[in-house]
């Protein structure tokens, strides 16, 4: 049985700067895996690599045992790899509902989209209220909910989330993580990049800790929470979020 996603010895660069120095990680079906690390450690780069926005220099990417590193992003979406990017990436000029419908581009089935829309609205009632509004008028937390809801419309096999807590008030962050837990319990596999290690390690089964484009540590979330090095480096500062 292959893991759902298997990244082996991947390197990637932005121009002359080597952003990933050979990382290997895997995500198994049904898991929530966290990708932790400081700003600039390579979390976003790793997710962009998996989503297909950045080609690997070396190494391989397997999804369900099949190589995907040559596929463009839109074909990875077709396989079910869906990214909620940093900064949320909503379409500000489109309405909330249109943003959500774009998530359904993967199957373009009106009936299924309508059913999924109701499900997303049940999960995020505020989006139901705001469905006819331009998405650019939403608050940051609402935009994050919209971005997650839109990704769910694609019925992802692997949901990639880049810093879902970034720039949001603590109460909103807690709400978003509760929803992420519910989404996982409904059967979605996730890989979450997060600076807030506290939150991520509570939700995740396993975690990888990135430092300077390399994997410094990995293991069960429980074990990492009790690891003295992790405590000192990543958990101690959890209250001083950006």
């Amino acid at each position, binding site marked *: 049985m292959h893991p759902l996603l298997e990244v082996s010895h991947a390197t990637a660069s932005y121009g002359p700067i080597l952003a990933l120095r050979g990382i290997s990680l895997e995500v198994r079906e049904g898991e929530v895996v966290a990708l932790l690390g400081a700003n600039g450690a390579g979390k976003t780069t790793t997710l962009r690599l998996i989503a297909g926005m950045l080609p690997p220099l070396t190494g391989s990417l397997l999804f369900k045992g099949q190589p995907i590193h040559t596929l463009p992003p839109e074909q990875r979406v077709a396989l079910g790899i869906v990214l909620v990017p940093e900064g949320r990436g909503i379409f500000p000029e489109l309405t909330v509902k249109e943003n959500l419908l774009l998530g359904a581009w993967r199957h373009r089935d009106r009936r299924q989209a309508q059913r999924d829309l109701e499900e997303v609205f049940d999960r995020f009632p505020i989006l139901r209220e705001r469905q006819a509004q331009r998405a650019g008028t939403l608050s940051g937390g609402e935009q994050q909910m919209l971005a997650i809801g*839109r990704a769910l419309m694609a019925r992802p096999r692997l949901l990639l989330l880049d810093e879902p807590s970034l720039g949001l008030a603590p109460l909103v962050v807690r709400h978003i993580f509760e929803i992420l837990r519910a989404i996982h319990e409904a059967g979605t596999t996730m890989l979450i990049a997060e600076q807030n290690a506290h939150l991520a390690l509570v939700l995740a089964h396993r975690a990888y800790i990135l430092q300077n484009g390399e994997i410094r540590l990995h293991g069960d979330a429980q074990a990492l929470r009790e690891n003295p090095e992790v405590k000192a480096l990543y958990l101690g500062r959890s209250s001083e979020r950006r």
Partner: protein
Amino acid sequence: MNPVIQYVAGGLSAGALYGLMALGLVLIYRASEVVNFGHGDLAMISTFVAYTLLQARWPLPAALLGAILFGAFLGALVEGGLLRPARHRRATPLTLVVLTLGLALVLNGLAGFLWGHEIRTFPALVSGPPLIVGPARVTREQLLNLAAGVLLALALYGFLRWTWSGLALRAVTQNPDMARLMGIPVDRILLLAWAIGVGLGAVAGILAAPLIYLEPNAMLELLIKGFAAAVLGGMTSLPGAVVGGLTLGVLENLIAGYVATELKTPFAFAMIVAVLAVRPAGLLGRPIHRRV
């Protein structure tokens, strides 16, 4: 008949064609960030194709439809065959604009070679005595142009609003990278935008042809007026393109009627200059939101 109403009616009819040109220009500009200077010559080639098909005794509807589809195909060819390869080699938007300018000159020369520079008469698409519509007396041609402009603008609106491809096109105009992350094949959507845009230009060219004479430079005026309409509407707004076209048509007709016919075209130029100087975002335009 009240002359003002006549001028307005005639202006709306011409303005509908400017609006169609402007719609194509704006659609292409929003989707691919390219101001298409080849728009007039692509419309001209399509019109020559309609002319040739009519000469070959094709039935009128078939000849027109054939020429419009040919125009759409040409548009897709320009995007897929010229702009896409250039973009993949990291050409800047300015390079792409210059590319369309070069294309315009090539097409113009090619048309001179294929069809010659003599002036040809394009057959009338409708005939019959003028009709009385409310307070105005309008020719059937004027009515046809206005109807075509309005119906195609509504059809485009419906397409963008209610179809998957239309929604995808709007997403691509806002954030192509994010559209890709939704699974949208951005390259194919750009082909579609160019096909529709140049197809609309072909319609405008074919409708304008019976009113002017057909020769390789015949569509220059239509292109300039289309640009003026697009700029007036804000260059990024589709409703603005239509409103801009109709406004320009009516104003220039009033100027021609009350001031001097010769000032019609200079007026369109003056309008571009004035709008860009005073209100660069146009009547209905907004700056494009695009993530870099």
